[in-house]
């Protein structure tokens, strides 16, 4: 039989994958990979804040990465002279460093930095799992509710705005959803690998999808498959769990490239 901790890890990882897959499609379609990375890097600052204030850590991460997203919006408006990827680079590394500095200042807490950077899914509690699935369900419900206007904005923002879609509101909602994924995925794969859960399953799903909705569902399935395969692999070969999940996802992506080649040739 499987140990309880392993079952909890499976539930946690698949819960994250179910939300990260469909949301990752929008990240891939809108070329937001670096944006996701930036929010993920800010998560360490959220950890520090959570420890400082005695908050539940994912809540601290959610607050800080949502704040980083809003800060990016403000900077984009204030300084049209700097390209978005420059701003992202500044935010990303400044917040990561600030997080490390803050953790250094919290001399009275013993911090396992590796657990935050690369995840520690085998240590999740039952309430963590419940929180992950609650966040995934809420995130999916929001995503489903704004799916069509968000897709219209993804196709062409000017066209959507000219047709009366409040594009800004939907963009902000998308950013907050990404922040939500980061808050719950940190425990599973860690800060440095979170973006991979967003983009690798979505990129792999492209080969099999004929519509945006199909791509979202397939991305969720590929992410789930990678979570299960990665966790069993880590159990079997005694490898770190978070990176094992990402390796499994990357392997599935490789297979999808082969499948695409077979399909286009056949």
């Amino acid at each position: 039989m499987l140990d309880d901790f392993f079952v909890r890890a499976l539930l946690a990882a698949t819960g994250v994958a179910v939300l990260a897959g469909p949301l990752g499609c929008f990240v891939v379609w809108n070329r937001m990979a670096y944006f996701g990375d930036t929010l993920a890097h800010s998560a360490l600052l959220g950890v520090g804040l959570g420890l400082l204030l005695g908050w539940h850590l994912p809540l601290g991460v959610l607050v800080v990465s949502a704040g980083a997203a809003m800060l990016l919006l403000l900077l984009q408006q204030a300084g049209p002279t700097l390209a978005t990827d420059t701003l992202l680079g500044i935010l990303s590394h400044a917040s990561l460093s600030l997080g490390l500095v803050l953790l250094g200042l919290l001399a009275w807490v013993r911090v396992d930095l590796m657990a935050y950077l690369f995840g520690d899914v085998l240590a999740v509690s039952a309430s963590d799992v419940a929180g992950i699935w609650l966040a995934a369900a809420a995130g999916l419900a929001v995503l489903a509710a704004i799916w069509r206007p968000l897709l219209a904005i993804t196709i062409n923002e000017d066209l959507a705005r000219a047709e009366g879609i409040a594009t800004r509101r939907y963009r902000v909602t998308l950013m907050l959803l990404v922040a939500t994924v980061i808050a719950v995925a940190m425990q599973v794969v860690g800060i440095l690998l979170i973006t991979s859960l967003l983009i690798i399953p979505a990129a792999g799903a492209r080969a099999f999808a004929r519509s945006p909705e199909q791509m979202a569902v397939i991305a969720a399935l590929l992410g789930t498959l990678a979570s299960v395969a990665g966790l069993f692999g880590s159990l079997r070969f005694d490898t770190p769990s978070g990176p094992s999940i990402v390796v499994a996802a990357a392997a599935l992506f490789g297979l999808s490239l082969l499948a695409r080649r077979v399909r286009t040739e056949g």
Partner: protein
Amino acid sequence: MPHPPLNSRRAEARPGTTPADAPPEVSPAKASPPGAPLIELRGIGIALAGRVLLQDVDLEVHRGEIVTVIGPNGGGKTTLLRILLGLVAPDSGRVRSAPGIAVGYVPQRMHIDPVLPLSVARLLATPHRRSRDELTRAAALTGTADLLDRPAHSLSGGEFQRVLLARALLARPDLLVLDEPLQGVDFAGEAALYELIGKVRTLYGCGVLLVSHDLHIVMAATDRVVCLNRHVCCTGAPREVARHSEYLRLFGPRGDQAYALYEHRHDHDHDLQGNVLEPPDARDGPS
């Protein structure tokens, strides 16, 4: 989703922005039809980094009217269009649209990333759901019915514009805005496209606003031409504008020829792809 009105985006009028040369009214007799306009722009001015892009521009489009804005590149046509569509706020002047009107917009060009798996049919049905029947009818009108199941990223520029026109028509627009609709359409296809736009105007009873830098437009199919070079140089019926000194100064004698070109009689018709339609007496326009 119902279209929220674009009305009354207001900006403070700055003193001293009135141009010395007020736009000459070429043809007061052929002025806009009476009644409230679908959209009305008054005294629009905008500057970017100290460069004046538009100064004191007035524009209005009424129901059932085809208005063409022509002007050289850099003359502010695209900026004016973006202000009209509510994508950019002007520094001065105001935009007022009739409450609750639906605006159909056909952008100049659009890129669909191949990473987005999107069929043409799905593009037409986003964000609003449409039945296959509706899609087929709208696509047939613009000659794109056979493209419905193609991936959207595989279309050529001309195909894409006709697909986007079909998409705009699905919203049953009161006002149809087309940015450079003749790009990617060859010379022979222009007449067919203009005929189509005229047909759409009749079918939907909408106002149409076209923007073009190209002199090769079928000016004869336009009710009113607005010649724009940062300010409105001249406006009126195409025949009069073509003879106007401001227009000739902007476009030179070629401008005159461009108009003449479109008064010549075709001895055959073309479809939207530019193919000559057989038999020669099939004059019902694009299929």
